[in-house]
């Protein structure tokens, strides 16, 4: 019994230590390099998001949004509300230039983004927008 308790304590200490280590390095146990592909898959969508956020910070974009009656802070909020996958899809659609009217219908949040991307000349969804560049 005593031995079992000791083992339990030992296991608890060991597991706690593992947990601490795991936050420092992904897993200490693995003995090979983490591939570039895995890291891209995990982190590149964040790059998409910060790319869009940076674009929203631009003075000319903000001025254009205000001119159109859109609060830039609201646009950021809506961007923040989207999942990584949605952001990735949006950036993809921006690049395709193929985002159609149905998307506006199904996902209203994208409206603001497409508006912004229209201004940035990435897309040409709305007739009333004018390219800034």
């Amino acid at each position, binding site marked *: 019994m005593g031995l079992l308790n000791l083992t339990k304590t030992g296991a608890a200490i060991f597991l706690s230590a593992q947990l601490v280590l795991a936050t420092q390095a*992904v897993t200490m146990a693995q*003995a090979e390099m983490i591939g*570039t592909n895995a890291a891209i898959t*995990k*982190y590149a969508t964040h790059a*998409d998001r910060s790319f869009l956020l940076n674009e929203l910070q631009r003075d000319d974009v903000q001025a254009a949004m205000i001119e159109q009656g859109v609060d830039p802070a609201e646009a950021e909020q809506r961007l923040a509300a989207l999942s990584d996958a949605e952001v990735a899809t949006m950036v993809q659609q921006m690049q395709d230039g193929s985002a159609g009217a149905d998307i506006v219908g199904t996902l209203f949040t994208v409206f603001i983004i497409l508006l912004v991307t229209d201004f940035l000349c990435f897309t040409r969804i709305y007739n009333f927008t004018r390219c800034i560049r």
Partner: protein
Amino acid sequence: MRRAACLLVCVWLAGCAPPFDPVARGVADRPTWAMVPDVPLIQQAAFYCGPASLAMVMQWAGSNVTQDEIAALAFSPGAGGTYLADMIGSARRQGQLAVEIGTFDQLLSEVAAGHPVIVFQNLGLGVAPVWHYGVVTGYDFVQDAVYLNSGQRDQMVMPFAVFERTWRRGDHWGLVVLPPDRLPASAPQVDVLNAGAALERVGQYQAAAMLYQTGAARWPDNWLWPFGLANARYGMGDLHGARRALRQARAMDPTIPEVRANLLQVERELAGQVD
């Protein structure tokens, strides 16, 4: 015969096509004229439009690879053609950066940046396809012309509307193939990163390392570039180089567990703790 049929189709299409309007196409910001100089014209061997296109682009970049050498990596004799995926894969196995594009705007911005673009076209009709790869080397809004090295002895000139239709039937598939010390003008960062990872997968570590360094210069805020560089150097057995790159990545963002895990791994190997 096949070419004659194609030309007939082109003429018919040109007859009913409206003139090219850059504003309506959303590409009014692009230069009205662009031409990539010195892309060689290679006459394709039978069914070798894919390998010939790759050879033209890679020779333009200074390689002396031939269409036959590329065909050995890309051509599918049973299919009598070259699959899209094999176009990409063979370029990478030759140590080239290969990134797909899919829009008219991307095509024009690449050509304007001085990069030839391989395009996949259906020169025939939807019901009677004539699949073809060609290389777009220039365009001119005023002349309403897209210039292609299309596997023939002479340069091919197509009105925009004709080119657009033939390209649309090929799903707007385009491929930018560049040496890894140059970057596409229109491709998003993540596509270039993925192309680098693909170079690693085919063992082209030297090319991958070069690409990661080029990317790091263009996007200096993203730690994924030195992270990839470290993996490419590790692949070449350059542990010290890998450590330098990982330290750089860690300095850019000390919170990333993958960076620290790999750095730890490299340091352990350097210390001889791992066999």
